[in-house]
C-alpha cells in the first residue's frame, strides 16, 4: 500500500489527485491525501469577470470535499508547513485550529501554487497596500466592489485614471492583466462611461503581447502575425495607453513609482489600480534527518521546488531540452512538483536590467492547462513508481502546447476574446531552429469565437474537475 500526499488543490494538485484515484482504483489499497487550505476549487481564469462585477464568485467555485469523497481521496483542510524528505513525512497545520499534525508519505506531490508576494513592492496589494488584484476569489470580490464604487463616481460626472498591469519587474501572468484591462474597457463602453476614463497598461513585458512567454508568432496566409501586433491593434482600437518594460518600486495612495528599462523613474497618478503581484514559492520548511534546513538543496532561491530541469544556464543558452519532463525532484526521487510550484530552468521572456541595476524579468507562466499537464505527468509517474517502473510520463513545456483564451468581453452575441495557441510553450530551437516553435500550429486571433471558447472552457473545466459523468473525455 502506498501513501500519497498531494499539497495543493489547484489545476495541478486537484487534477493529479483525480488522475491518481482513477488510475489506482482496483490496483491495491493505496491512500491519497490532499492537503489544502482551500475549501473550494477556484477556477481562477474566470475571476476576471468577477473582478468587473459581471459574474458572482460562486459560479467560479465548487466544494472540494464532496468530490474527494466520491473519489475516495482524504481531504485535509490545512497548510503544509514542513517537509522532512529523509524520513518521508510532512507537518501540516489545520486551517481552523492551527494544530500541527504529522502525515507520513511514500510519495509527495507539491502543487501548492504560488505565494502572492505583494511584499516585494511596498504599497502593493489589497491587504497592506493601495492596489487591487484578481488572483484569489476574495481579491476579485474586493476589486469588483471598488471598481463598481468608482463606476458610481463616474456616473456622477467624475473622471478617473485606471492603471492595470504588473506590480513588479519579476511578475508573470500578464495575460490576466490584459484580460482585466480589456474587460474594464468594454464594461465602461457598455455603461457609456469610457470617455471619462484614461486607461493605462503598466507592465514588465519587454514588448506588448509578450505575456511572459516571449510573445508568439503565427502564420496568417503568407504573413507572420504576432501577439505584439494583436495587442497593439487592440490597444489602439480600445484607446489604451501603455508603459511597458517597467518595474514598480512602490505605490502610495495617489501614485505608482516606476522605473523603466532605460533607467527613467516615473510617477503615475491613479484613481484605481489593479496590479498583479510577483509570485514566490510557499513558505514551507524543508528539514533533513538531523534537523538542518535544506531548502537550498530542494528549492530555487524563489522557493519553487527543483525538478528534472537543467538549472543555471544563462537565458541565451537555455533551450527546449533544458525544461523538465517528469517533474521528479533530482535529490528525493519520491517527491514531485507541478504547476507553479515547480522551479522553471529560467525565464521564457528576455530578462533585462536598467542602467541602475534594476532587474525587469517576467517570470514564465505555468498556470491553467500547463499546470494540469504537469500535474497529470507527475501523477502518472507516481503510478509508475508504485508499480515498480521508472517515471516514463512527460509533459515538458518545450514539447507541449499552450492553449489560452484571453477574454476581452464576456457574452455569447457580443463577447470578444483573443484565442492563443502556441506550440511549444517554451521555445525549442533544437527542434524548430528558426523560431523555436511550429508556426503552423500557433494561433493568435481576436474574435467572438474566442469568447465562446472562454465561456465553454469555464463550464467544461468545472464539469471535469468535479468528476461529473464523462469527465475523463474532457481534455
Amino acid at each position, binding site marked *: 500500500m502506498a501513501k500519497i500526499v498531494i499539497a495543493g488543490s489547484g489545476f495541478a494538485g486537484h487534477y493529479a489527485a483525480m488522475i491518481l484515484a482513477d488510475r489506482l482504483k482496483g490496483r491495491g489499497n493505496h491512500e491519497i491525501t490532499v492537503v489544502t487550505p482551500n475549501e473550494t476549487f477556484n477556477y481562477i481564469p474566470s475571476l476576471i469577470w468577477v473582478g468587473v462585477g459581471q459574474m458572482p464568485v460562486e459560479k467560479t467555485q465548487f466544494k472540494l470535499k464532496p468530490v474527494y469523497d466520491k473519489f475516495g481521496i482524504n481531504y485535509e483542510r490545512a497548510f503544509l508547513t514542513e517537509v522532512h524528505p529523509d524520513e518521508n513525512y510532512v507537518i501540516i497545520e489545520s486551517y481552523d485550529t492551527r494544530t500541527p499534525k504529522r502525515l507520513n508519505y511514500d510519495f509527495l506531490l507539491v502543487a501548492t501554487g504560488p505565494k502572492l508576494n505583494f511584499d516585494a513592492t511596498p504599497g502593493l496589494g489589497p491587504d497592506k497596500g493601495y492596489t487591487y488584484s484578481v488572483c484569489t476569489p476574495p481579491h476579485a470580490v474586493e476589486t469588483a466592489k471598488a471598481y463598481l464604487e468608482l463606476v458610481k463616481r463616474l456616473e456622477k460626472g467624475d473622471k478617473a485614471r485606471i492603471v492595470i498591469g504588473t506590480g513588479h519587474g519579476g511578475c508573470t501572468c500578464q495575460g490576466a492583466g490584459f484580460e482585466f484591462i480589456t474587460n474594464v474597457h468594454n464594461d465602461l463602453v457598455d455603461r457609456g462611461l469610457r470617455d471619462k476614463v484614461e486607461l493605462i497598461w503598466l507592465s514588465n513585458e519587454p514588448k506588448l503581447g509578450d505575456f511572459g512567454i516571449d510573445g508568439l508568432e503565427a502564420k496568417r496566409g503568407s504573413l507572420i502575425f504576432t501577439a505584439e501586433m494583436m495587442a497593439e*491593434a487592440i490597444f489602439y482600437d480600445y484607446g489604451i495607453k501603455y508603459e511597458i518594460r517597467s518595474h514598480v518600486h512602490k505605490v502610495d495612495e495617489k501614485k505608482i513609482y516606476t522605473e523603466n528599462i532605460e533607467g527613467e523613474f516615473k510617477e503615475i497618478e491613479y484613481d484605481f489600480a489593479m496590479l498583479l503581484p510577483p509570485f514566490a514559492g510557499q513558505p514551507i520548511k524543508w528539514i533533513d534527518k538531523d534537523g538542518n534546513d535544506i531548502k537550498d538543496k530542494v528549492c530555487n532561491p524563489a522557493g519553487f521546488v527543483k525538478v528534472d530541469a537543467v538549472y543555471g544556464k544563462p537565458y541565451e543558452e537555455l533551450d527546449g531540452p533544458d525544461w523538465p519532463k517528469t517533474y521528479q525532484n533530482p535529490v528525493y526521487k519520491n517527491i514531485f512538483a507541478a504547476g507553479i510550484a515547480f522551479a522553471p530552468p529560467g525565464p521564457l521572456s528576455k530578462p533585462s536590467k536598467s542602467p541602475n541595476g534594476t532587474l525587469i524579468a517576467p517570470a514564465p507562466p505555468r498556470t491553467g*492547462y500547463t499546470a494540469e499537464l504537469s500535474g497529470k505527468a507527475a501523477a502518472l509517474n507516481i503510478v509508475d513508481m508504485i508499480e515498480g517502473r521508472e517515471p516514463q*510520463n512527460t509533459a515538458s513545456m518545450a514539447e507541449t502546447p499552450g492553449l489560452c483564451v484571453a477574454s476581452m468581453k464576456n457574452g455569447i452575441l457580443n463577447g470578444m476574446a483573443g484565442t492563443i495557441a502556441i506550440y511549444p510553450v517554451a521555445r525549442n530551437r533544437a527542434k524548430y531552429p528558426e523560431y523555436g516553435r511550429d508556426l503552423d500550429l500557433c494561433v493568435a486571433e481576436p474574435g467572438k*469565437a474566442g469568447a465562446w471558447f472562454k465561456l465553454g472552457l469555464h463550464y467544461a473545466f468545472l464539469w471535469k474537475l468535479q468528476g461529473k459523468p464523462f469527465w475523463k473525455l474532457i481534455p
Partner: protein
Amino acid sequence: MAQAKFRFSDSDRRKMHSLISQFFRAISLAFHFLKLVKIAEKGYKTH
C-alpha cells in the same frame, strides 16, 4: 506614455464581429485545439 502602432484593417474588424464568420472559425479552432491536445498527451505512457 506610448501609443499602439499596428492597426486592424476594416476587413479584420468585420471578420472578428461577424457571427457567421466566427461560427466557422470556432469550428476550425476547436479542431485545431483538439489536435494540440493530442500532441500534449503524446508524453503520457501510463494507462
